[in-house]
């Protein structure tokens, strides 16, 4: 018997996966870097405190 999931369920699952994945990727290490910066010696020899900031997020709706 070939049983297929409904589109609505697949949409739900894709959205859940996307959000769960982002929670994993933007982890505590990243949040700490966001608030207090990362001290690093850059390529030009200057030690800077680098604060990551997300400027653009260009992605389609994965649940569709």
């Amino acid at each position, binding site marked *: 018997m070939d049983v297929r999931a409904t589109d609505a369920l697949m949409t739900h699952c894709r959205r859940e996966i996307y959000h769960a994945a982002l929670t994993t990727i933007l982890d505590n290490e990243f949040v700490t870097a966001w608030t207090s910066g990362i001290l690093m010696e850059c390529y*030009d020899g200057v030690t800077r405190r680098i604060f990551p900031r997300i400027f653009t997020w260009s*992605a389609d709706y994965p649940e569709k």
Partner: protein
Amino acid sequence: MDSTSGDDAGSFHSHLNDSLGADELQPAAVSDEAMGRGKRKKRLAPKLRQDVLPDGQAPLPPLRQSPTPEVDETGPRSFLQIRQNLRLVFTDIVHTTVNTFGVSRAYYGRPTCIPDEYMTVGEQAMPLVAGQRHQPRSLRATLWPYPNISAWRLGSWFWGGGDTKSKAGFKDLVKSVLLSPDFNVRELSDIRWDDIDEMLAKDAGNQPYGGEGWKETAITISIPTGVKKKASDARAANSGATSHMMEIPGLWHRSIVALIRSVFCDDPAAQHLHFNPFKQYWEGPGSTKQRVRDELFNSNAWIREHEAIQHGPRDPGDLAPRCIAALMFWSDATHLAQFGQAKLWPIYLYFGNQSKWLRCKPSAHACHHVAYLPGVCATLCSWAGLMY
């Protein structure tokens, strides 16, 4: 953008007249030939044609030398505490001189460097030199997991030579393994080939050398079962929820912090990264000063955020300049094959600190892979099909 491109074209003829605009550089209108059978006009070979190329960023003139040493960008901003909750912050605005296009920049605080200063059109347009990106690896790291070059030569012949025995493979064995000057049979005496093959089969994340810190994580998602929670339902009472938690394996990801560190510290592309935001102005002959916005690092958002992080709390003695790593994420599901269902769902990362003229070059290796998301796998589909 418009103001810069019109401006850029003008630079080519700047030695003639600064006021030449883009419109005046168009070739003369077609005259008699278009009306009937005219004389064939001999077209110059492209090499000889004096074409006006769109120019990229102009080289910036050096910063004005100030007689008194200005406050460096390093260190916190000076401020005047007017009231308990009111602080007047002083920021040095450093203006660069006007370049050939009439474009100048106003930096907030003296920048530690201006990456595109003196950058020529050629440098902007040419692909970056191949192999520039990666630091040379040590011999040991290159050979890993083989302990020496003789073992590596034999191993790469064995795995790279194809599945079947062939004459070409035999000749290759003689030529590139046995006859190579650095091949020494004695080095092969106590090598555990099975262990090496096992290490080769494992993913790169566990390697002591190389590997970019990729990790595989299983994520858990909740799927509603659609079953209403009833007090009489023993199963629901036990679980206390009407959703089913499902573990989905196969999220491949790497640390963004480690990625920033590797790009900013070790990547030669980092010498062209902009750390200081600025406002860019264009002032043509007889026109008013206009703001030119063409990059992320001259946007208001960056300037605002840059100032905000300068005023954040500092540890005593922490005088390091504070800069932004502008993350530009990009994601799109990709079909791998013309036919079939093979798909990847990657998340890419670009750095807004890099000029768009460099970022757009494939040779710049500006695109970094951050994650590969798992798809809704077949097991889930079949499970869901049975459930509903």
